Every structure is written in C-alpha cells, then in structure tokens.
C-alpha cells in the first residue's frame, strides 16, 4: 500500500514539533546550583575553604564568597562555564576557568568551590543536593481556592 504524500508531510510535521519540543526541554531546563565555600572532605582528603573568592557562572556578575558562604545560582541548559578568582596563601591571584555539564534531571546541585580550586573532577565538586528545609509552603495547612460560580460544584 502506498502512503499518500500528504500523510508523510503531516507525520514529518508532528515529528518536527516533537523534536523541537525535546530540544526546548534540554536547552531551557533550569538547574539551581548551590555554590558553597566551606571546608569539605572528599575521599578522606580535606579541602579548606578559600579566604576570599569571586564566582561567576555563565558570564553572570561575579559574586564574592568568604568561608562558610553559600549562594544559589540558577542556570539554564546543560553546558556551563564557571570562573573562580581567588587569592591563595602566597597572596597570588589565581583564576580557574572550567566548563561543566549538569545532568538533565538534576534540579538542585551543590558545588564545592574548594574542590574546584584544587582541580577535582566534576563528579567530585558537583553533587546532588536534596533540600531538607521545610518551606513556608509546606507548613501552610491549607490554601483556599477562590470559589466562584465555576468552581462551586467541587468540594474543595
């Protein structure tokens, strides 16, 4: 049986739309990165927090971090550029510039700046983070839906 040309075109249009949708999902996916400047122990080795550093991800305005500081940066897409500028113990200014990728389905990750400064691999300095904090939303006992003529029928 010969498939008509019109059907082929329609199928191609549907496939194209799905592909664009998938592409949009990948390039538009937002990740939250918690940039952390705390002393950390990885594989039995302790990496000390940097005294003062500036961090910029994907060309954003540099943020200054002192020991025990943590900031949240929201990034879009999977491929990112990290720039860390800091002064080492000999008062020499150093600049670390690396590219890294964020897993698609990771929403929140923790990035250790001391690990970055010491040249550790991505899987060491960028780890999954599960928020343990109870948000205001979670302790709210009930949000009332505004009931108008349209929603009145539902027992909310």
């Amino acid at each position, binding site marked *: 049986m010969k498939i008509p040309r019109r059907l082929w075109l329609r199928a191609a249009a549907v496939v194209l739309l799905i592909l664009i949708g998938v592409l949009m*999902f990948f390039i538009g996916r*937002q990740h939250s990165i918690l940039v952390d400047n705390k002393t950390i122990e990885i594989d039995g080795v302790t990496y000390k927090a940097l005294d003062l550093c500036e961090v910029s991800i994907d060309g954003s305005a540099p943020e200054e971090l002192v020991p025990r500081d943590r900031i949240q940066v929201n990034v879009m897409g999977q491929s990112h550029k990290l720039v860390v500028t800091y002064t080492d113990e000999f008062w020499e200014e150093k600049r670390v510039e690396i590219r890294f990728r964020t897993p698609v389905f990771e*929403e929140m990750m923790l990035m250790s700046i001391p690990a970055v400064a010491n040249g550790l691999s991505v899987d060491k300095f960028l780890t999954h983070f599960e928020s343990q904090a109870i948000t205001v939303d979670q302790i709210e006992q009930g949000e009332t*839906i505004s009931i108008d003529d349209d929603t009145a029928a539902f027992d909310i």
Partner: protein
Amino acid sequence: MSGKKIKQNKVFQLIRNNPVPIMFVIICVICIPLSGYSAGYLISEIITRIVRNSFLIISLLIPIMAGMGLNFGMTLGAMAGEIGLILVSDWQVVGIPGVVLAMIISIPISVLLGWFCGKILNLAKGREMVTSYIISYFISGVYQLIVLYAMGPIIPIKHSSLVLPRGYGIRNTVNLLSMRQCLDNILAIRIGTISIPIVPFLIIAVLCFIMVWFRKTKLGQDMRAVGQDMEVARAAGIKVEKTRILSIIISTVLAGFGMVIYLQNMGTLNTYNSHTQIGMFCIAALLVGGASVDKASIGNVFLGVILFHLMFIVAPKAGMNLIGQAQLGEYFRVFVSYAVITLALVLYESKKRRAGTLTGRKLADAQEDDK
C-alpha cells in the same frame, strides 16, 4: 444632489456603519484629560496591551471568515495554553524555550478541543456563538476537574510551589517570573520612557501576513465561500462541515499560542480564572475596532485593542478624579465590555433585518414591474 448634501450623507453613513468605534473614541477623548495621564505613559501602556492581546484577537478572524461568528470557544485554546504553561513550570523549563515548549504542548490539546467544538458547532448551525459560549463553560469545568484533581495523582506535578498543600491540585496562582516578558525583552528599543518590544511585534506582523496569505489559499477561499453561503459552497463541491471544523481548530490553536504570549507578558497565571474573561474581552476589543459578527479585518484588531484598552487604562483614574472612586472605573470597564458585545449583536441583527426588508422591497418592485 448638492456636494454639501453628499458630504453630509457620507458622514451619516460613516456614523451609521461605525457606531461602536465612534462611541469609544468619544469616551476616550473625554476620559484622557480627566485621567491626567501623560502621553508617554499612555503610549507605553498601549504598546504593552497591543503586544499582550493582539495575537489572541487575531485568532478570532478565521471563524468569522468561515461564517461562524465570534468564536467564544477561543477560551478552549486559552485553557490548552495554560496547561502547557503549568507543565512547563513544573518541568522547570524557563525563558524562551519554556514559552515555545508551552506552545508545542498546547497544540495537541487545542486541536482536540477545537475538533470537539467544531463538531458540536456543526450540529448547531446558525447558533454558533451561543453554542461556543456554553461549550467554553463546559470545557472550563473539565479543565478545573483536571487541574484540581488529576494534576498530582494522575498527571505528575512534583513542585511544591505548584501543588496545593493537600498534595494534589494546582495552586491559585502559578508564578511565571522565570519566563516573564522574555519575548518582550529581546531587542527591545527604548525611546525616552517608552520601550518598544520588537520580537512580539514581529511575531504579530508575521501572523498578520499569514492571515492575508491564508485568505488567498484554497482553504481560505473555501472558508469565505462557506461564510457567504453554505448551500452554494456545498453545491460547488466544498466540504462545508470539514472546512468549518478546520476554521475552529486553527482558531483554537492560535488562541493557545496567544494565551501563552499573554501570560508570559503578565508573568503570573491565575490557574482558575485567567481564561474565563479572555474570550469576552478579546471579542469586545474586536467589536470596538469596528468588526461585526460576519466581517472582521486586521485593522479592526489593532483599532479595537487601542481603543478598548485605552478606555481600560484611563477609565479607573478618570472615575477616581471625577467621583473619587477608582472602583467606578473598574466597574465601568467590565460593564462596557458586555455592553459593547450586546450593542454590536443588536446592530448586526437590525442591519441584517434592514437588508432583508430592502431585498424584499426590491423583489416586490421587480414583480410589480413585470406585471
């Protein structure tokens, strides 16, 4: 007939053919000085409203072309767009990719709803407007059922910022800050205090060109033929029912896109109410622009958006300055939108009757002459 009389006649014809736009021009002319707003502020606000609403209003043109009147069923497309935005917000897709993805998600939902609406409207020929109005209420109920109960347990929604504390259902408001005005801010030009968003204007311009082109295509010609006379179109071999369904599907899909553009501009989605008034306000704006139930053009869209929203902007402040109550202006704008639709429908009906009487009279005269 003297030249003066011909001129007077032309003015009278103009007033008789465009009572609604003229009425709005008068209202705006009275309200603008009373409101005390600067010209810069008004222009800036009008530009924002054009960007926000034009796409939605243009989606109404195709059913009018196909003789199906004002498509109150555009609310269905708006709901599809909202579902797209809810899902995209949950998937944390932001910015322009988020807007595009929401539009893509809305397409199958809009097509399905448009097909359903078109099928029903084919069963209610001649009463399309009231039928589509009621369908929009029916589908709004289904939408609320899905959003209140299915989102969470059946359709996975995991973000606590979206889900109600009880564990299922979507909150009253969905924050779209991550995609707010993302289209407007690309290549925006600033002239003094006025910001001109180039990209949304380009999108609207492209849609206008598509509309002009569409009228000349085979399907566009078929729709016009169906709009003029269904029986003649059927005799000419046009599949009337299919053409009418297609017009509603296209309108619903465009309304879905329009709703995404509208909400990305607003930056917040009112889950249960955003779509309810959208059809009414878009139709009112189109009618204010001088369109009627059976005739509308792109010019009507822009004139309507400018006049209708100008009144929206100035009426509350004018009410405040005049009577000391801003609420009067708010009340005024809602009341006027309904009044405009009523007036336009009454005028359309009286015009149709007048035309019918005139044709009858001509026919009777011709029969007299034959005797």
